[in-house]
């Protein structure tokens, strides 16, 4: 389902359904699939043997599963607030190329490269949204948008280690290792959910949410990795109405 499809569905729902009443609310729990792959790169500079060296790292994290729970409360007819907490995890890999300064000569860097699979990226997000919903006898459509507090924890490349021996013209890199780094950032989100009531208090629903923020992670020794957190996530789960 594309964002265009969701927009059409939302528009149709708004025109055919009545607003939900003030004082009503719902809670939900959904399984989520974060559809976007996350790719990020960083370039680090470091000082070694009285000269600058560099490491360029590319990260690729696959789409991955997650979950979300939330609660919504209608302040007045059709309009309300919702608070949701979501998490997601992705597996990925990193690849780097490095230029290590030569200990004895200027401008004679030794190049090396390495990679590591099995690194992960975990996101948690707290969404605080303004919502507007329309409800029919069985169906309810809710659009929402607001702010998101992201926390991203990712495995980043540790400082590459190597061994060398005289005459030091090449290096033997040791297997790449990753260290966990985390950071938080406020971003945004917007989306749409469609519920189907299977009883007075219960229902099922699907949801699409797009969220985003650029989170900066510190990487060793003094680098920065910018990760585009969020992306488009599709979810489906149960609903509880009150």
């Amino acid at each position, binding site marked *: 389902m594309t964002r265009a499809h969701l927009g059409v569905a939302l528009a149709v729902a708004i025109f055919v359904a009545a607003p939900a009443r003030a004082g009503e609310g719902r809670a939900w729990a959904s399984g989520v699939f974060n559809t976007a792959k996350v790719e990020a790169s960083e370039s680090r500079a470091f000082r070694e043997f*009285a000269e600058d060296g560099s490491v360029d790292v590319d990260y690729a994290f696959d789409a991955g599963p997650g979950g979300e729970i939330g609660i919504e409360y209608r302040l007045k007819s059709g309009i309300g607030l919702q608070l949701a907490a979501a998490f997601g995890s992705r597996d990925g890999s990193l690849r780097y190329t490095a230029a290590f300064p030569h*200990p004895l*000569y*200027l401008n004679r860097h030794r190049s090396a490269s390495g990679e590591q699979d099995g690194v992960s990226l975990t996101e948690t997000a707290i969404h605080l949204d303004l919502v507007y919903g329309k409800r029919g006898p069985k169906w309810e459509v809710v659009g929402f948008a607001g702010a998101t507090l992201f926390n991203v924890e990712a495995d980043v490349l540790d400082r590459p280690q190597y061994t060398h021996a005289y*005459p030091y013209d090449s290096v033997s890199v040791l297997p790449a290792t990753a260290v966990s780094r985390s950071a938080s950032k406020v971003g945004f989100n917007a989306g749409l959910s469609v519920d189907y009531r299977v009883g007075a208090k219960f229902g099922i629903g699907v949801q699409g949410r797009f969220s985003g923020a650029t989170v900066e992670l510190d990487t060793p020794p003094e680098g920065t990795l910018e990760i585009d957190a969020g992306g488009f996530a599709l979810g489906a789960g149960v609903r509880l109405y009150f």
Partner: protein
Amino acid sequence: MQKTLWIAIALALGASSAQAADPPGTRRVAAGSGAALSDWDFRVGRLEAQGELRLRQSRADELMPGRVHERFAQLHRGVPVWGGELVRQRTEAETISVFGTFYEGIELDVAPKLGARDAEAAIAARGLVLPVGEAPVLTVLPRESGYALAWRAEAHTTGDGGFDIRMLFLDAISGETLFEYSNLQWQSAVGNGTGVLSDPKKMSVLSGSGGFLADDQLRPPRLRTFDMRGNLGRTLQFLNGQVALGQSDLAADADNVWTDGAVVDAHAYAGYTYDYLYKRFGRRGLDDQNGRILSLVHPVNRSDIFGYSDSVISTFYLNAFYCCDGIMVYGEGLPSNLQLTTGQRVNYWSAALDVVAHELAHGVTDFTSALIYFGEPGALNESFSDIIAAGAEFFHQEAGSGLLRADWLLAEDAITPGGIRSMANPAAYGDPDHYSVRFTGSEDNGGVHINSGIPNHAFYLAIEGGRNRVSGLSVTGVGLANREQVEKVFFRAFTAMLPPSADFAAARAATLQSARDLYGAGSNVERAIRDAWTAVGVQ
């Protein structure tokens, strides 16, 4: 001079060697079980009761609760024995292990003839100071030959020669220094340096809390650069084997950003030359055993030049030389207001990579063919140094003309403009380029520098090709890109095949044999070298 120096070095190192070996009665204890443990456990108790051991420390084992480690210092008639200590590990119930060193059978009178004040005076006389509150401690010093009563003191260097902490052992009878070492903890470091010609380089040095010293810790040999700070007397004393240079003589820098160009170039270029010899020929330094490489800079001050004799000026201002046993001395050059009669200016001699490589190559010759430094073998000796010099330049610098470029001139970065010799055109500097015009007089040791032009030109022609000025014969060289082949041929011939008395004809024969061995009979290399020797009139 070389023999004298060997003796001096042996004397200088003698104390260290004596200390390194164990005296009679040394017991290295490593008792972890059985009868040995029972025996040493019993002996610790008995020796402590007899006053030969004193518990100096008892510490609980933080990794194994219930274990205690006791350190017992050895005493001889109440005087501590340097290095003598037993360490006992025990629980409340039993002894687990005893390790350490114990010196048995010490026969030594512990009444010093010199008092602590005398020791302090001796330390002060060396320009060292004791930290406030510290005093010499009477000590029994184990030596290879036995035991000596000594005043032990940890003294600091003073002045601008860098910082060092010297552990001294002064004979409590005679006052002489029995043994000493630096107690300053050092580690390898790499710094930035600016050469004489303002070119940046890296400096592989020694780092410590007191600053940085020109002592390369990254290359295999002991590669050190001494700043003689214009002290010609000390320089001569060292070269004559009368004093040994120590850590305080090393060139030093406080922040590891080295700005003394003469020091930077001497130190860096010695390393460059070592690297060239290793990478090109697989040779490990001058003696092929990573023997020491010592560079001496600033043997005199430029401003003192008018106070010196012609002999000193020609040796320590207008020259660089390989002394002996891995020691190079680089002349100071001339003050900026003075120049040679040729109109050339003379900079610090270490400014030129080819000069440094040339001098180090004399060391290689010393340890290999030992070509006699007179007449034709002497000219071959000089020529081999020039060949290595040019090879090192082309190995490390871009080919071209001007400063810091690889070319066929010698010392052009120190003696400007033009350097002192040309391998491409020896005649331009008054040197012969053909055997028929060789120098036959007695000056210059029978023309060792002058006649080096002939084999130098042969080497050049074998690589670059060209036409000899005298014979008119043309040579097709192997090309600069293939110079490695000719370099290897000459290196192999000069270091492995020539006898000390070799003449030019022998050099021709040896290089041709070397070329055939390496590249095959009839190879381009053999042909180029044969044609080159023929072109310069050497048959």
